[in-house]
């Protein structure tokens, strides 16, 4: 336990502070940068602009390089040189004795910009003659990727009806309360640098920094302390990471940068436009799916954000047994700020596009929203299931999960309440959302790895130290891993210390992402613990003069079949000190490192060129009950339920905490969180008054249910639990609002459903109903 020490709590002798000067324009040429005014300010130690930084630093290697997948790849600099391609792009940096001085001095830097016309709208960006975001690209397109299977044209031909739904998902992000922070400490004695940082993936970042800084990896140490929320945003590729290391190197003093909220809000995600067409039969059977969608990924970045757009298509058609598919991604660049990874990693948008479309189809066909889903779910005896995009779903019981969610919310009772309320002039709605969330992902040729490693060390006193290659974004996986090791070793939980996030002490690993940490961190720690346990048992057996198989270790007490027992500490001490007699049966120390590499992943493309990057397919159903005030457009959530299949649950409190958090994300995204821009691409959303996350008073009661189908290819049947839920819960909210307003004919598929938008949709529906009456 103890107190949490965050990155910003670290301060070192001679500590300096940096402020980054950012572009006020979405697109401009930089004609000159004059830093002399800043250098004159008392307390300023160093000022650097783009030209100098470009000489001292290499470009930032991409977390996931589009070129590896046949796309366009841009050179990403820590500071802009010659031109800027988005609002907020770093242009210069000031290092001073304190933060206020650095900020003040930055205002004394004169940048001569020649402003050019930006392109903000992705549909404009792909038109001929659109301004180029990246000057040497021939199109504003990272890549176009088809996800096609079967014969979609034939499916649409055979359909009774085609239901078309335009789903617009806006730009919303994740906002950890702890913003990004980096503190670089250069050690001239060893010519090495230590970066204390809000870092999700320490070892991969070390590799990236070695390239940027032109230093070998063994001269770089990353220390990632306790993190105050990450959600993907703290995956690396950010300019400030390499920049702080360089500034520490040139000043030979520690340099710290703390992102402010306005800067944190510059990191975008999720903005996509879908045109979903469902080929359906009158009985609700879905025969085919067509969806040519556009993702506005903003300006190029070295961060892994753009990959979200890819995952949206790869996860189609989610939990539904549709095989004839014509899905096409256009990942477009514009002069909006860049994306980074964001909880759900694109799979939340799949859920939104599918669930809003299915709700629309159910209404058009006059079928119950539950029935249309039940009719089209993949059946539980079809697993492992080969998806039309090449994924291999490990296990699931989607119908069973939805039934549990309906039961948890009290579906039948709410239907009765809805009918009663309608008589009283109140508008209650019931909405369902389903989300399939592939987790534990791994991409070939990238540091997005599917496996990970842990070391288990037992000291002479019997205390246990577990060092993992995985890290925690604050989700509590060290607790889950400690529980697993306690069980495997047979020792008390409080004797275990889990160490994470330090490249010097921990095994080479890939940190946290994609709901992987308990699957591979826990799996590898279990294997290592089993090896160490075998050694302890061997020596204990020698001490107790018993056979290995007759010795048990439970909660730190070692007993033999004959009834003799001995303390763990005594055995461990013997392991270290009696290597030439009783402990000669083992090789000291009591230490093992193991790797867990889940199955099911297929990186060798199949005959269609498809890979399966995921070993684990969590899934969940969400039901939202809302009431709409038709005078104002305000939506109040009355009740919420979720049933979750994350495989075997190690710690229910942690899993439920993750689920509730994701639901709050989903509600915020559906209702109010929105990053907005003016016509020139300048960001208007700057703080938490503008970026409206739900307050606790906006949250309904959430009833949670578990419906586990164990994963056959992971330790104990685990699936990821940390990432799922944003899209499914957002879809449930949107569907509940449309359901509440069905008597008006309202069907809103552009997010977020702010009160003004809901009100406008009601006015619009009333008007068109009125004009229809007049016409008749």
């Amino acid at each position: 336990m103890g107190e949490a020490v965050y990155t910003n709590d670290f301060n070192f002798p001679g500590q300096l502070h940096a402020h980054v000067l950012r572009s006020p324009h979405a697109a401009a040429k930089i004609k000159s940068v004059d830093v002399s005014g800043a250098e004159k300010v008392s307390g300023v130690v160093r000022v650097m602009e783009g030209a100098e930084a470009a000489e001292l630093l290499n470009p930032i290697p991409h977390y996931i390089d589009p070129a590896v997948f046949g796309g366009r790849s841009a050179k990403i600099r820590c500071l802009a040189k010659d031109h800027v391609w988005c609002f907020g792009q770093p242009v210069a940096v000031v290092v001073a004795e304190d933060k206020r001085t650095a900020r003040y001095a930055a205002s004394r830097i004169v940048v001569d910009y020649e402003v050019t016309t930006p392109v903000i709208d992705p549909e404009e960006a792909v038109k001929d003659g659109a301004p180029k975001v990246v000057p040497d690209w021939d199109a504003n397109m990272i890549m176009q990727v088809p996800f096609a299977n079967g014969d979609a044209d034939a499916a649409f031909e055979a359909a009774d009806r085609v239901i078309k739904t335009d789903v617009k998902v806006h730009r919303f992000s994740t906002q950890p309360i702890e913003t990004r922070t980096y503190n670089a400490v250069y050690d001239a004695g060893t010519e090495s640098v230590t970066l204390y940082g809000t870092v999700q993936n320490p070892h991969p970042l070390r590799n990236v920094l070695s390239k940027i800084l032109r230093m070998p990896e063994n001269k770089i140490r990353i220390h990632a302390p306790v993190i105050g929320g990450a959600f993907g945003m703290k995956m690396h590729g950010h300019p400030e990471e390499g920049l702080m290391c360089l500034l520490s190197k040139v000043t030979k003093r520690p340099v710290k940068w703390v992102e402010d909220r306005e800067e944190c809000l510059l990191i975008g995600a999720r903005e996509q436009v879908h045109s979903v067409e469902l080929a359906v039969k009158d009985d609700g059977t879905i025969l085919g799916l067509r969806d040519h969608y556009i993702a506005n990924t903003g300006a190029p970045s070295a961060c892994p954000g753009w990959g979200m757009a890819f995952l949206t298509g790869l996860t189609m058609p989610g939990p539904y047994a549709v095989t004839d598919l014509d899905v096409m991604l256009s990942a477009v660049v514009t002069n909006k700020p860049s994306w980074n990874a964001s909880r759900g990693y694109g799979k939340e948008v799949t859920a939104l596009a599918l669930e809003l479309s299915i709700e629309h189809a159910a209404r058009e066909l006059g079928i119950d929203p539950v029935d249309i889903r039940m009719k089209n779910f993949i059946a539980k005896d079809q697993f492992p299931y080969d998806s039309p995009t090449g994924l291999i779903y490990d296990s699931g019981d989607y119908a069973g999960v939805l039934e549990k969610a309906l039961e948890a919310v009290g579906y039948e009772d709410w239907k009765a309440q809805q009918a009663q309320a309608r008589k009283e002039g109140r508008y209650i709605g019931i909405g369902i959302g389903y989300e399939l969330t592939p987790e534990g992902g791994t991409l070939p040729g990238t540091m997005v790895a599917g496996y990970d490693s842990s070391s288990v060390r037992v000291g002479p006193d019997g205390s246990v130290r577990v060092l993992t290659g995985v890290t925690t974004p604050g989700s509590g996986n060290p607790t889950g891993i400690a529980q697993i090791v306690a069980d495997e070793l047979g020792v008390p939980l409080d004797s275990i210390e889990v160490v994470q996030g330090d490249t010097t002490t921990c095994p080479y690993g890939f940190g946290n992402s994609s709901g992987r940490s308990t699957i591979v961190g826990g799996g590898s720690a279990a294997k290592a613990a089993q090896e160490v346990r075998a050694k302890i048992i061997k020596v204990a057996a020698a001490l107790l003069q018993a056979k290995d198989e007759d010795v048990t270790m439970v909660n730190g007490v070692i007993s033999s079949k004959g009834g003799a027992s001995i303390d763990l500490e005594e055995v461990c001490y013997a392991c270290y000190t009696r290597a030439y007699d009783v402990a000669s049966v083992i090789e000291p120390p009591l230490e093992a490192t193991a790797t867990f590499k889940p199955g099911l992943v297929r990186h060798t493309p199949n005959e269609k060129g498809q890979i399966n990057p995921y070993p684990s397919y969590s899934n969940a159903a969400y039901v939202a009950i809302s009431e709409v005030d038709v005078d104002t457009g305000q939506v109040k959530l009355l009740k919420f339920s979720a049933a979750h299949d994350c495989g075997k649950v190690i710690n229910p409190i942690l899993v439920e905490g993750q689920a509730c958090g994701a639901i709050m994300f989903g509600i915020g995204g559906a209702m109010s969180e929105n990053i907005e821009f003016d016509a020139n691409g300048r960001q208007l959303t700057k703080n938490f008054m503008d970026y409206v996350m739900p307050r606790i008073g906006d949250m309904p009661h959430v009833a949670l249910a578990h419906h586990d189908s164990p994963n056959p290819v992971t330790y104990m049947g685990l699936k990821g639990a940390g990432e799922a839920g944003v899209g499914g819960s957002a879809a449930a909210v949107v569907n509940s609002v449309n359901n509440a307003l069905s008597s008006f004919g309202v069907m809103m598929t552009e997010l977020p459903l702010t009160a003004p938008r809901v009100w406008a949709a009601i006015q619009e529906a009333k008007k068109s109903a009125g004009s229809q009456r007049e016409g008749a």
Partner: protein
Amino acid sequence: MSLYPVFARPRSLDQAGEVLGSLSSGAMIIAGGQEVMPSVNYGMLMPEVYVDIGQVKELRGITEADGAIHIGALTVHRDVQDSDVTRSQVPLLAYAAAQVGGGWQVHNRGTIGGNIVSMHPLYDIVPSLLALDAEVDVLKDGTVDRVSLSDLMKDASHGLGSEALLVRVVIKPMPSGAGWAYEKLKITAGGYGSANAAAIVAMDGDKIASLRLVVGAVSELPQDLSQVLSNCFGQVWSDSLASALEAKVCDAISNPLSDHQGDGNWRKAMAGVVARRAVAAAIAKAR
């Protein structure tokens, strides 16, 4: 704009007046800090001089004098909510102070004076004060003048000026039997309002004898619509009168705000909704 600001802390009203009179426009008065400090922390404001009036005791507290209620400019929202005087004599104001966003911390630090002089269109206190015909005492050039709040609120771009200091708010008690309501529409719990309305109604049997209605958060300054609605006098409250009132209020909002709290069309419509709801609630409460 200065990296090394000067900090002044006068201990009396006279001292505060002298300090303010001697300074240029770079001076920034700070009381509860709820308006100033976020802007300073954000780097939007870098005042040369802070004048902290927090120690000027004359500016704090709620008293009764000459048949009126005097509320010192430094009185925090929590005290306005909890005082027996405000609760019994101007319950509309006590209630409105409880609706200020930001939670306990803001209620404990934010002051009635700061709320008024910031002239922020989305704040909660002024609509009720206007409906109550409040007056304010302002210290300038060594003298204290009493002016009506509605005169002060005519122009949002000037405010009081950095050499002047709001001393207190003076309000007459609400007439006994009057009904009142403050209706605030928010798009999320704890946030700013998107529209609000303060109403005070006196009834004559089942007819409306008089009506004060001020609508806030929909235009740059709160709008007193009592005149516009004078045709309600002598009428019985009904669905059709409610609809007519709603339409009249919407029409009266000619230049609605369009911001993160909602677009102009919606704000204009919501002005009508909160007005109708406030008047209905006030009538229900009137005796």
